């Protein structure tokens, strides 16, 4: 559990302070201040993704808890929705704790940052859904490493957490719009720095749309998986 805590803080200190000593300001802020909102976003992502993959797979496949629940007056759709809710909840909690930590270090510029948990709810659902879809598909627990290597880590690296993507080639910038983490990072950075504008609603809208589109898939996959 505490692993979720420590890793974001390690990134913050190693990259923020270590690397930051060599990097000048980015867009008028220090490097550690620049990456802090991204670290919040990614801690939410890792929390939701881990819980909805490893956490859920162990319950479903090894402990067969889903079977026990569906033998009771619950449908598999309800069980899956519950699992997603829990993973999203974890994302909100962990992200908010990181927010508190970076506030304590004086890295938060604006009271708009108080809206962070709301953004984390959206982030939590998106990553919980992505993870749960994978859980509905994988034959065994080893294949989760593909999810983390091919989906989560690239998002972590290329969504603007550690560097602005403005200077990358055009097609990369366009591709970023397809990465949910990119939108979360934009939103959180804007809130933390207090740079608010109506354009942010586009990012909110994209996240909501993603959630709506993805939502039925884990339920369908899990129903098929359990043979019901």
């Amino acid at each position, binding site marked *: 559990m505490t692993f979720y805590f420590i890793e974001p803080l390690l990134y913050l200190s190693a990259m923020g302070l270590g690397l930051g000593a060599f990097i000048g300001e980015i867009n008028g802020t220090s490097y550690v201040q620049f990456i802090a909102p991204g670290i919040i976003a990614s801690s939410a992502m890792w929390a939701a993704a881990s819980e909805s993959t490893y956490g859920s797979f162990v319950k479903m496949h090894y*402990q*067969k808890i889903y079977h026990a629940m569906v033998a009771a007056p619950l449908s598999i759709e309800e069980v899956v929705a519950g699992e997603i809710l829990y993973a999203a909840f974890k994302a909100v909690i962990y992200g908010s704790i990181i927010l508190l930590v970076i506030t304590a270090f004086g890295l938060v510029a604006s009271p708009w940052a108080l809206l962070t948990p709301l953004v984390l709810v959206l982030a939590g659902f998106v990553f919980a859904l992505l993870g749960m879809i994978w859980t509905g598909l994988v034959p065994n627990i080893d294949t989760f490493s593909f999810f983390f290597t091919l989906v989560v880590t690239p998002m972590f690296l290329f969504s603007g957490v550690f560097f602005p993507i403005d200077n990358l080639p055009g097609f990369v910038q366009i591709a970023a719009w397809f990465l949910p983490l990119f939108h979360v990072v934009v939103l959180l950075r804007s809130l933390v720095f207090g740079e608010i504008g109506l354009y942010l609603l586009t990012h909110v809208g994209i996240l909501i749309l993603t959630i709506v589109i993805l939502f039925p898939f884990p339920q369908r996959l899990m129903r098929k998986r359990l043979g019901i």
Partner: protein
Amino acid sequence: MKEPIVMAKNLRKSYGDLQAVKGIDFKIYQGECFGILGPNGAGKTTTVAMLYCFLPVTKGHLEVLGMDVTNSPRQIKMKLGVVPQENNLDLELTVLENLIIYASYFDIKKRTAEKKALELLAFFNLMEKKDINVEQLSGGMKRRLALARGLINSPEMLILDEPTTGLDPEARHIIWQHLRLLKQQGLTIVLTTHYLEEASQLCDYLFIIDQGEIIERGSPRELVEKHIGRYVLELELPAEKHQCLLEELDSNVKGYKLLGNTLYLYLNSEGQYAATKLQQYPYISYQLLRPANLEDVFLKLTGKGLLGGE
């Protein structure tokens, strides 16, 4: 005339081309202990999974507690208790927590759930373990907890899928005792098993299913008397001697079955005569006179032992 609480008509379950249950009919009455017997892969688990509304029915009609399983699964599940084949307890919780969380799936208030949970733990002799993590329990204790969990909602019917598979004899007998007590309290019990002794000891009525079809049904005693008799003589002797032995014993033997090298003779009531006569018979390497049982019925009807699938 009592109304059945379970009624199956032409019940079918297919997975694509594979037919797991091929159009079976049966009725279960309130208060009885009903057995579903058969080798592994026969369709026992599939049948009960349809009963407790886990698997959808492919074709045919299945009514449980007066409700159709296709239309009212949730209402049916509210009144059923289920103990699946694998212990799917929540390993992260304690014994008591498992019961209380499970009760919440039935909309049972926490206080009621806690009271019922403690009653059940006392009944199953798990009180001392109530705050212990489930992971630390033995196999027998986990199964008793699964049984307790199946009763948390005070069901009208309890369904158990192979309740004692994988347990040592002592644990098995303890479960049987608990089930007998529950039956005395009026609970309707449906259980699947491939242990003939379990079916003989517990079930009032049963059917034998093989490859998705019901091949016989009746009370354990009826089936044994009808197909076998009261005593069986098991013999091992060279194949070429079988015919002349059978001719010699003639009317003393009601029927027989050959399985591998062992000859199973179904004796008539004068069968003791046959047994003593055989003492003079040469070439017999192994001989056992014992009461007839359900396994003999199964061997006769299907030509393989109940444990043949393992």
